[in-house]
C-alpha cells in the first residue's frame, strides 16, 4: 500500500527532502475563519509538523457556507472555532501537533508566539491585526503570508522580513474603505483561491524552495475572471516604523485595552473587557436564565434573548449576535452582564 505523502513527494520540487522539512515545521494560523480554516486544512493534510490556531470566535450557522473545517454540529454547539478546527484536523491527520488559543489575540500574545513558529498565516479579517502580525514578523524575523477575500475578490502576498519591503511599506498606514464580507458578501471559490495562493507560498518556503517564491502581491476577481500580479521590491522604506533601519514596531507596543468591535461578515459585536475578567458562571447563569434560555459548555455560556444571543467566554470576552451596533451591544452588556460579574486581574494565559 502507498505511503500517505507519496503523491506529494512525487512532485519533484518537494520530494522526500522537502516532505521531511515540512514535517518539522510549525505554522501559526492567525484566525480560523474562512481563510484560516482553508489554509489550516491544506497544511495539515500536506503533513506539516505543527500548527498553532488562534481565534476568538465561535462557529455560527452563517460561517458554514465558506468555512471548510466546520460542520452543523459545531454551529449547533456554539463551539469555539479553534477547538472545532482542531477536532476536525486531528481526524484528518492525527500526527500533527495542534495548539489552540481561544483568545482575542493582540500584540502581547503575538509577540510571544511569533518566535516559536516558522511562518505565520493571516486568517484575520482586519488590518489592525495584520499590522500587529507585520510588526511581530519583522521583530522576530518570521515570514508571514497576508490573505484577504471579500465578494469575489481576493488578494495574497508573502512578506519576508529582512529581504522584502513589509506590509507597512506597501500601505503606509491603515487603509480606509477596504472591502469587507459584511458589505460585499463572500463566495467560497474566492476563499479557496486565496488560500491556494497563501499555502502555495507557505509550502515553497517550508520545503526549501525559496527560489520559487512569488514575491508579488496577487489580486484576483474570480467572478469577472481577472488576475493581476504586482511586484513591490522597490517599496522598501528605510524610515519604515515596522521594518526600517530604526524599527519601533509601533503596533506591537500598543497596550491591550477594552474594545467593542463589529465582526466582519457576521451580524455580531465582540466586547473585550481589556483585562481578563473571570465570571462566576453559576451566578451568571442564575441571573441570565430569568431573561432567556441558557446553555453552557466547557468554553462558554450562551443565553438566547428575544432578539439577541449572548456568548460569554471564560476569559471575559463576550459575543453579542444579532446586532451590528456597538452602542446597542454595550447597553446590553451593561444591562445583563456587567452587574452580575466580578473582576479579577490576571496575566493573559499565553
Amino acid at each position, binding site marked *: 500500500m502507498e505511503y500517505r505523502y507519496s503523491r506529494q513527494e512525487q512532485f519533484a520540487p518537494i520530494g522526500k527532502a522537502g516532505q521531511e522539512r515540512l514535517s518539522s515545521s510549525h505554522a501559526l494560523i492567525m*484566525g480560523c*475563519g*474562512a*481563510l*484560516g480554516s482553508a489554509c489550516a486544512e491544506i497544511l495539515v493534510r500536506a503533513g506539516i509538523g505543527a500548527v498553532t490556531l488562534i481565534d476568538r470566535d465561535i462557529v455560527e450557522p452563517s460561517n458554514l457556507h465558506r468555512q471548510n473545517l466546520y460542520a452543523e454540529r459545531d454551529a449547533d454547539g456554539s463551539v469555539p472555532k479553534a477547538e472545532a478546527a482542531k477536532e476536525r484536523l486531528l481526524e484528518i491527520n492525527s500526527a500533527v501537533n495542534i495548539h489552540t488559543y481561544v483568545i482575542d489575540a493582540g500584540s502581547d500574545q503575538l509577540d510571544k508566539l511569533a518566535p516559536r513558529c516558522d511562518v505565520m498565516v*493571516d*486568517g*484575520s*479579517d*482586519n*488590518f489592525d491585526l495584520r499590522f500587529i502580525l507585520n510588526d511581530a514578523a519583522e521583530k522576530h524575523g518570521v515570514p508571514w503570508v497576508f*490573505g*484577504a*477575500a*471579500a*465578494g469575489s*475578490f*481576493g*488578494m495574497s502576498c508573502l512578506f519576508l522580513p529582512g529581504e522584502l519591503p513589509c506590509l507597512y511599506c*506597501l*500601505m503606509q*498606514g*491603515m*487603509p*480606509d*474603505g*477596504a*472591502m*469587507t*464580507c*459584511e458589505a*460585499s458578501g*463572500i463566495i467560497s471559490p474566492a476563499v479557496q483561491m486565496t488560500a491556494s495562493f497563501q499555502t502555495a507560498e507557505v509550502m515553497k518556503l517550508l520545503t526549501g524552495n525559496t527560489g520559487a517564491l512569488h514575491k508579488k*502581491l496577487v*489580486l484576483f*476577481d474570480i467572478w469577472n475572471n481577472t488576475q*493581476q*500580479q*504586482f*511586484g*513591490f*521590491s*522597490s*517599496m522598501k522604506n528605510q524610515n519604515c516604523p515596522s521594518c526600517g533601519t530604526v524599527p519601533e514596531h509601533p503596533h506591537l507596543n500598543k497596550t491591550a485595552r477594552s474594545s467593542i468591535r463589529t465582526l*466582519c*461578515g457576521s451580524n455580531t459585536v465582540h466586547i473585550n473587557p481589556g483585562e481578563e475578567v473571570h465570571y462566576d458562571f453559576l451566578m451568571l447563569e442564575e441571573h441570565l436564565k430569568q431573561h432567556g434560555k441558557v446553555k453552557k459548555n466547557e468554553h462558554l455560556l450562551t443565553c438566547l434573548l428575544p432578539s439577541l444571543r449572548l456568548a460569554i467566554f471564560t476569559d471575559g470576552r463576550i459575543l453579542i449576535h444579532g446586532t451590528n451596533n456597538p452602542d446597542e451591544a454595550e447597553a446590553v452588556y451593561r444591562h445583563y452582564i456587567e452587574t452580575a460579574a466580578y473582576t479579577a486581574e490576571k496575566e493573559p494565559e499565553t
Partner: protein
Amino acid sequence: MINILFFARLQEEAGRESLHVEKAGCTIRELKEWLNEEYRLTGLNRTMTARNEEFTNEDAVIADGDTIAFIPPVSGG
C-alpha cells in the same frame, strides 16, 4: 496617453474597469487628486498604486504609455 486600471471598490465607484487619459508627465499624487475631482473616487489617498505592474509611491512621475493600477485593499478573511 496613459492607461488606468481600477479594482474592487474603485471599480464600482468609477463604474468602469479602465480609463485612457492624457496624463503623462504628472505624478501619481496629482493623478489621484485629478481622479478625485473628476470621478469622485474616495479613499484614493490610502489606495496602493502600481505602475506597469510594480508598486510605486506617490512621487513617481507617469510616462506616456504607462499603465497605472489602483488597488484598494480587501479586508475580509
